[in-house]
């Protein structure tokens, strides 16, 4: 039986002024919105960078102000912002913060002050990151992977100050994440309400919970890598710096290992993929179940799949390094572990499909995004098998195939889930309803557009077109049609870019003009829809905590009066 906090409201930090209610707030819901808004704003910066990149690739030479250095800076900042500062922050800091206490029946996170501190440190990390645009030499252009030695040697844009702001920002982000992550894990373990056993938790919580544990284990690797590189850069150490030349001069460094950095980076970087994916997996499971009016199919299998994927993701990192020059015999182990992880992942896909199967599917906007996610995730998951399958990776690595794969699987897919989730929980968060027509329009342009962007990229990659190239130049094996494809991809990207305006307009307009939302507009069974107020007030549950009697997926139970039974309804 779960430990429960008392119905006592006194320990909560009650806001006394506007400032403590909305700015220095310790309420998980306010912090969630702060996290989300910050993440989305910096995400828009990354989106603009991607549009600039596409302009250069689609119409090389048309924009003389985009020089090779600028292009590499766009690539690097776009990647790092999207992966860390948008996806990780939004899925864990945003959705994690909002959903965990509400879904497990807690009044707040167990360490509200630390939770607040987590956000402000995150904001600081974003400010330091953005400062990189304004330091001499601009932001780093070493790729989001920041590989040394080039990240801190001449010949790479931002090798002096841009890389420093990036590394410092990452270190601050890791501190911020640790504060948040400890909160999420502890809240799930300690603050569940009476009756909320682990195996009654919604899959959203399972995904966020597992991802938080993974983050606490994986981010330290990034943290030490960042600190070590800062030492190499400013203190003259040689952790990652071998005896080498830089622009024709021998550097004072000696004996360091660039591969060590790659191992540290990917020991963080691969779990990071699942730190983003698992919350998305959990959330999309809930969207599908609610809008298909059907219990999640194979719940226990789904939970175990999340846990197994989380564990396995720590022993696959070197599949990013098949051609890095590490001992090639590692390839056998890492290919096998990588392809094994496909089994629990496939089970998740089957169970989403089998949840839809024999359901009663309502095609509302959140559901459309969930279905689109299944499609793009199947696509991106399968293309991952090519890259995981060691020898097949050799011709494909560092080509557009890789770009297409990871955008499909960890760019497009989680972002579709995020859109679906925002549409899904918006009525609870703000108490207002968004405009359905705009939502559908946003969905169709985004879904079809991203597929038009990324499907052809796979084929350019199979042809051998390399990634991170400012211009393809005169290359015998690249026909004229590739340039044409690049133009079309850019046009599709700009359309998708513009269509996001529909989303922002819809969300902001509905905040003020949207019709009042029903407290439970989708007829969902999980706790967050059962709060006494909408939006939920501070403390979430009024005088008494809810008591849970069943799992979160009692939809269309035979003999029941309605097609869902809330978790708080006692068993007959």
């Amino acid at each position, binding site marked *: 039986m779960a430990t429960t906090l008392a119905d006592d409201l006194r320990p909560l930090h009650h806001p006394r002024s506007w400032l403590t209610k909305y700015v220095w707030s310790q309420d998980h819901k306010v912090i969630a919105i702060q996290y989300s808004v910050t993440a989305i704003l910096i995400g828009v910066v990354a989106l603009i960078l991607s549009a600039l990149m596409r302009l250069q690739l689609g119409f090389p030479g048309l924009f003389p102000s985009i020089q090779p250095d600028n292009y*590499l800076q766009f690539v690097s900042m776009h990647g790092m912002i999207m992966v860390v500062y948008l996806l990780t922050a939004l899925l864990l800091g945003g959705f994690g913060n909002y959903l965990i206490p509400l879904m497990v029946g807690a009044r707040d996170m167990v360490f509200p002050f630390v939770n607040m501190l987590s956000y402000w440190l995150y904001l600081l990390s974003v400010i330091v990151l953005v400062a990189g645009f304004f330091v001499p030499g601009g932001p780093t*252009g070493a790729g989001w992977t920041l590989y040394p030695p*080039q990240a801190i*040697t001449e*010949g*790479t*844009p931002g090798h002096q100050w841009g890389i420093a702001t990036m590394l410092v920002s990452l270190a601050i982000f890791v501190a911020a994440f640790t504060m948040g992550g400890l909160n999420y894990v502890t809240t799930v373990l300690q603050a569940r309400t009476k009756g909320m056993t682990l195996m009654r938790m919604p899959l959203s919580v399972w995904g966020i919970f597992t991802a938080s544990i993974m983050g606490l284990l994986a981010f330290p690797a990034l943290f030490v890598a960042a600190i070590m590189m800062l030492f190499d850069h400013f203190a003259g150490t040689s952790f990652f710096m*071998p005896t*080498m*030349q*830089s*622009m024709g001069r021998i550097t004072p460094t000696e004996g360091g290992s660039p*591969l060590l950095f790659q191992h540290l980076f990917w020991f963080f970087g691969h779990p990071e993929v699942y730190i983003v994916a698992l919350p998305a997996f959990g959330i999309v499971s809930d969207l599908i179940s609610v809008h298909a*009016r*059907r*219990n999640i199919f*194979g719940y*226990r299998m789904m939970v175990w799949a999340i846990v197994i994927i989380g564990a396995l993701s720590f022993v696959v990192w070197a599949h990013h390094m098949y*051609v890095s020059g590490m001992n090639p015999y590692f390839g056998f182990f890492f*290919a*096998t572990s990588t*392809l094994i992880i496909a089994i629990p992942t496939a*089970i998740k896909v*089957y*169970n989403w*499909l*089998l949840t*839809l199967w*024999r359901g*009663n*599917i309502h*095609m509302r906007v959140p559901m459309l995004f969930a*279905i*689109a996610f299944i499609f793009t995730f*199947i696509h991106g998951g*399968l293309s991952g*098998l*090519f890259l995981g*399958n*060691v*020898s*097949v990776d*050799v*011709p494909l690595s*560092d080509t557009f195939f890789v770009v297409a794969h990871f955008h499909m699987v960890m760019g497009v897919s989680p972002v579709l889930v995020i859109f679906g989730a925002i549409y899904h929980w918006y009525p609870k968060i703000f108490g207002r309803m968004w405009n359905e027509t705009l939502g559908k329009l946003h969905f169709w342009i985004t*879904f*079809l557009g991203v597929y038009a962007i990324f499907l052809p990229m796979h*084929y350019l990659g*199979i*042809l*051998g077109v*390399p990634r*991170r*190239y*400012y211009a393809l130049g005169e290359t015998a*094996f690249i*026909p004229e049609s590739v340039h044409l*494809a690049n133009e079309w991809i850019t046009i599709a990207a700009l359309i998708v870019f513009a269509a996001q305006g529909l989303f922002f307009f819809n969300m902001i307009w509905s905040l003020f003009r949207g019709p009042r939302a029903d407290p439970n507009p989708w007829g969902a069974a999980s706790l967050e829809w059962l709060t006494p107020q909408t939006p939920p007030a501070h403390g979430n549950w009024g005088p008494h905590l809810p008591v849970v009697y069943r799992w979160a*997926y009692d939809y*269309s139970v035979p003999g029941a009066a309605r097609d869902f039974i809330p978790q708080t309804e006692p068993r007959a």
Partner: protein
Amino acid sequence: MPIAVAIALLVLGSVAFHLFSPWWRTPLASNWGSIDSALDVTLWICAAAFILLNLFMAWVLVRYRNRPGHKAHYEPENATLEKRLTFWTAIGIAGMLAPGLVAWGKYVSVPKEAAIVEAVGQQWQWSFRYPGPDGVLGAAAVKYISPDNVLGLDPLDPYGRDDLLVEAGDLHLPVGKPVKIVLRSKDVLHDFYVPEFRAKMDLVPGIVTYFWMTPTKAGTYDILCAELCGTGHHEMRGKVVVETPKAFAEWQAQQTSFSQILADMPQAAISIMLIKANACTISAPRSIR
């Protein structure tokens, strides 16, 4: 309903795109047909899964759409179905992993008879070194690099004297002969990448990396850098000329050896080079056979 149609059309569209796409692998010019077949096996298994799963979804979206009087079925688990799906997935995964690992097994076993060639990367150009008549590349390291000794050969290593140096020129390879390409970087990470050979490998400063292959088709191919190496990454180009053994031998005869370079140097410069080299013999790197 529209989403079901869209999913089905996207599946058909993807298949059509695959069939009519003008972009596919470049014609193979090396022995790595096994990599191509491993890719094909992976593709067929993945394509089957992609088509089946998505068409199933499209059908489900139509068949179980919300309409008056329709109700969902309540069935939390179906252990038999889940076990069967897991089993068949494992079979499919094993089916593509096997050829992948077999090809990798070949990729990591360099044949004994393979010739040795060194490719040296620097920002942003390629240079090459052949071992000369003795078949052994002399020791080399960054610390030996000087304007007269751009590839950093150890002047005290007798194996290095007959090495042939091709600075910022084309790589020539005889067709049909296996070759181990030894990779060394003077500055940052690079990657030796010729799409037609399928093979590639990073150059890592501080260590020597390698891969092997047998060029099977005469011709001239672009060498690209496939590891982001700074501003000029996209311009770090080279050419590899695959030619008949006879043409290769003729070309090789015209290349300059390290002893010729030394012979052309002023006596004073040689003395300085040797003194410097002597000072760092304590941890001299080994020759590569």
